[in-house]
């Protein structure tokens, strides 16, 4: 069809230092990636990747990042990601690295993959963890699975339900 085709890189930001999460937002992350591309691929690479480059989604707590770039040059972005070793922000440097989990053509496929991925993670966690935490984890796991069934059926109701929850 007639559109610009993109590639979406679903990455996991892994950092030892939890303080790094504090000031992290999409702009910081975008600049970080851009700088790295410029460093690794030079001016051409930076220019080629700058078109259509964006951080579409960022979750600080899980460290999931969704990067968008044009289909023609996603290899450049992808190959630049391993060279990010430090998260630099406001004078602080926190060591970190990127772990590319998935490369997709649409946001939707990335989202679908992310669901599978997180579920797998939770199950692994459930198997490995100690007893006192098991309960809490179990709860969240079941909730996520329940929601999957629920969401298909009653979409409009969930809003009201949540509103009541907020009131509590």
């Amino acid at each position, binding site marked *: 069809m007639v559109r610009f085709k993109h590639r979406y890189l679903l990455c996991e930001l892994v950092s030892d230092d939890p303080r790094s999460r504090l000031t992290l937002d999409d702009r910081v992350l975008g600049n970080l990636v851009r700088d790295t591309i410029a460093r690794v691929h030079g001016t051409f690479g930076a220019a080629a990747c700058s078109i259509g480059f964006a951080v579409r989604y960022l979750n600080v707590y899980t460290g999931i990042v969704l990067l968008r770039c044009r289909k023609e040059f996603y290899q450049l972005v992808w190959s630049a990601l391993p060279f990010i070793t430090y998260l630099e922000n406001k004078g602080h440097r926190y060591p970190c690295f990127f772990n590319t989990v998935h490369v997709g053509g649409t946001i939707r496929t990335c989202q679908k993959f992310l669901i599978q991925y*997180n579920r797998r993670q939770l199950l692994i966690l459930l198997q490995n963890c100690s007893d006192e935490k098991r309960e809490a984890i179990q709860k969240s796991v079941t909730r996520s699975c329940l929601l999957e069934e629920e969401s298909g059926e009653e979409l409009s109701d969930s809003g009201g339900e949540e509103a009541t929850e907020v009131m509590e």
Partner: protein
Amino acid sequence: MSNAKERKHAKKMRNQPTNVTLSSGFVADRSGKHYNGGGKPFQAQKQEPHSGTSRQRQIKMTPRSLAEPDTNEQSSSKLMFKKKGGWKAGPDGTSQEIPKYITAATFAQARAAEISAMLKAVTQKSSNSLVFQTLPRHMRRRAMSHNVKRLPRRLQEMAQKEAEKAVHQKKEHSKNKCHKARRCHINRTQEFNRRQKKNIWLETHIWHAKRFHMVKRWGYCLGERPTVKSHRACYRAMTNRCLLQDLSYYCCLELKGKEEEILKALSQLCSADAGLTFAAVHCLSGKRQGSLMLYRANKYPREMLGPATFIWKSEGTPGSTSENRQLWIWLHPTLKQDILEEIKTVCQCLEPVRSAVSIPSPPPTLSQEKSQTEMTDEKIGKKRKRKDDKEDPNPVKKIIGDGTRDARQPYSWMSANTGIIISDLSLEMNRFRLIGPLSHSILTDVLKAASVHTGEEDIEETPHHWWIGACRNAASVALHRRQEAIFELLGGITSPAEIPAGTILGLTVGDPRINLPQKRSKALSNPEKCQDNEQVRQLLLEGVPVECAHSFIWNPVICESVTENKISDQDLNRMRSELLVPGSQLVLGPRESRIPVLLIQQPGRVTGEDRLGWGSGWDVILPKGWGMAFWIPFIYRGARVGGLKEALVHSQYKRAPSIPGDFPDCPAGVLFAEEQAKNLLEKYKRRPPAKRPNYIKLGTVAPFWCPWEQLTQEWESRVCAQGKPSVDSSPSGEESNLRRQESPKAPAPSAKAGTAVDNPTEPEVMDTECQDQPGMKRVTDRGAPGNHAVLTRSQLCVLRSRKLLKQLSAWCEPCAKDRRAARWAPRQGQHELTGEACLALTDRFPRALVWVSLSLLRKGSPEPHTMICVPAEEDLLRLRQDRQYCGPQEPRHSDPFKSMIMKQKEKKKVEKRQNRGRAAPEGPAAGLPEARQEALTQGLWPGALPAVTTHCSRGLLGYVTQGDFSMAVGSGEALGFVSVTGLLHVLSSQPAAERGLVLLRPPASPQYRFARIAIEV
């Protein structure tokens, strides 16, 4: 981003997950786009499907799960969560506790929240598409859109909901009857009658509606222009063939009474100064049609009411007494109300004619009130005139004539004093106009003089008793034969212009449907038929004899019977099909209808020098009900039909003023101009500012209307300021005469001008006892303060005095060297263009306009509202040096209002944003700046206009009212009005060889073009 676009985007993104960051709590207000509302830890951000305003509102998913864990950090986050207004720890956010280790529970919760957010994004449909459109192509099935069962079962429920929504949006099916029922004759007639209650339909309406763009105008439904592309074809028809127009919407007023009474009453309305009056010899005998301008009683030359044409019923007809005369005045519908009132006043006809049925009338409605104020004073109980065929109780009957006429509203008035009866005969007759040289041949083809009834045996079966009665009278039979002979002669004349203008010919013809040709054909003239005839020559020389102008159409009883006894088309066709030899001539014998008609020659172009007689033709007046019966035969003979636009083109090429657009001094003209300005402004505003001309920058002050008042006022004050010292020069004898005639009416302007007023009491008799004495009376009976106010307000007038027009016309001519100069020598001799003569004229008419025609020297095609400007010295100089010189350009003006508009817009935007930020109750406050915004439109002058005459680099003289490329001349031509004062000023300052040169500039162009001004009398 515009509001709608934003909303659309919001709708698309409402289910998408947003970024979750720690710092979003205080980032929110700064950027506010994707992460407003404090991002709580461990919360998926979700969107309520209903909420439109705060699309990114967070839905707390995990409060219960959060409340339970009892670790340190959990409690802190819980504490934060309790605060409703968002994350208060923002600025000192660094001080909050940061988890040092990854705890399994938080890790799991974060994952779970993310899963739920993603699930929502993936499963929910967020685009505008319908359910079945989201399916992949291989799963689509035919008829999915309306058959829910075709969809996969999981989607059926959603599709059901969508389908229900779509059904509600669909319109109700409006037609309550099936197609066949609607086409049924009775229902159709009923429907047609209902539809013509508001706007009158002409008899040819259905024919026109199928072929024309119809407009509702003046209370009628009229064809504006053909749907086919035919501008040029209609011009060719006018010039070489025949153009047909339905002018039945013209109103006819009938005056009956003694000749001297009628003349006395009507002479107040017109003046011999402006041309012929009702008393013109040829017209009075009934031989010719006359045309004149009507004014309010004794107010000439101010307070024009409008132009009219009139016909007197010829005298010398058998069976009519010479005392009782009949006069028809034909008017344009916009002028009817004013003129009818005025005629009723001057004839003192205030009493409605009573009829057999008398019903106390209800109070008049608002629309009638204006027309009947005088009447209600006189008489409270209005009588109803019975109208049989129009107000038929049976609604299925086809409406013939005026369908909107209120039964209670009288349409006939009489006066006890003068014995004059006025009746409103609007739509009682049809009037068709044939324009062009072939109109003769078409007329002679279509109309066949009725056969004289001789046989005595079958009187019983004919309904046309009036004709049998007429045939018994030898004199009327002889007259009929003469009329027939003259009508036959007409076929041999090449152009209607050869016959004296306004010739009237009465005729009684047979049913034109009977000899309808099988196919549409083109009538051709056969000049050899009777070209070298002595009779023809006599006809051309003398016109139709007076007695031949007689027609039975003047008799309303006969007209009624003719209308009622018309054989319907259906019957006629049935009879035709029953003929023994199919396709042969149908002979009805005595049952054939005889229709009295009146043929009136319309003079074409009578003014000016070139193309004299262009656009001449014949008007055919028929009794009502017979419109279509004549219309179709005309068309079958090759007449092309034109609408209102073609009528305008006709009058423009004829260089005649069109009604009502070219009468700025009559109320209908003012109304027309207002309406036109409104329409044009609306059209202008529909375009975006960048795609329309900025009239301020072009220096066009009034692009949509013509500020006549201001123009004349400015010229008056300008000339006054210049020519003050020379005012005292004594006017010529003739001028003083005129002034004296004027002085009782207009003491104020002459006093203001500072001239010596001649003594009005001097006993000098002009042609007018009726002009002088009522004038005096009016001055006395009007209050002194009101006097001045009325005069100053109504000072705008159009110069129509023939003498003065001739003088002006001579002055406008460039002093030529060729033979034309010799021809005009005597005329020019009478008055040289001197300051004195000018002054005398401007003194009398300080604020007058004059109708001029302009022909462009080289390029350019003017359009309405084009400005007529005074050329500067250097323009004339350059033209003299270079004959190819096109004309100067108007420098660009600055637009001081643009920045104001921009500022306002900016302010409005800011306010809007603030409003959106604040709560809903702030809404009404936003209405205020909008009201202010209304006043300014980009590219138009707001409020009062600046000085119009001096606004541009070339002084403004007047405006064009009609203008276009003229196919008749082959160059641009325009017609318009200029200020007399300004014109004289310009003429006297120009060198004699270049007198009459002006510049024209369309409103949307900076280019001036040279044109020559001419006043055609």
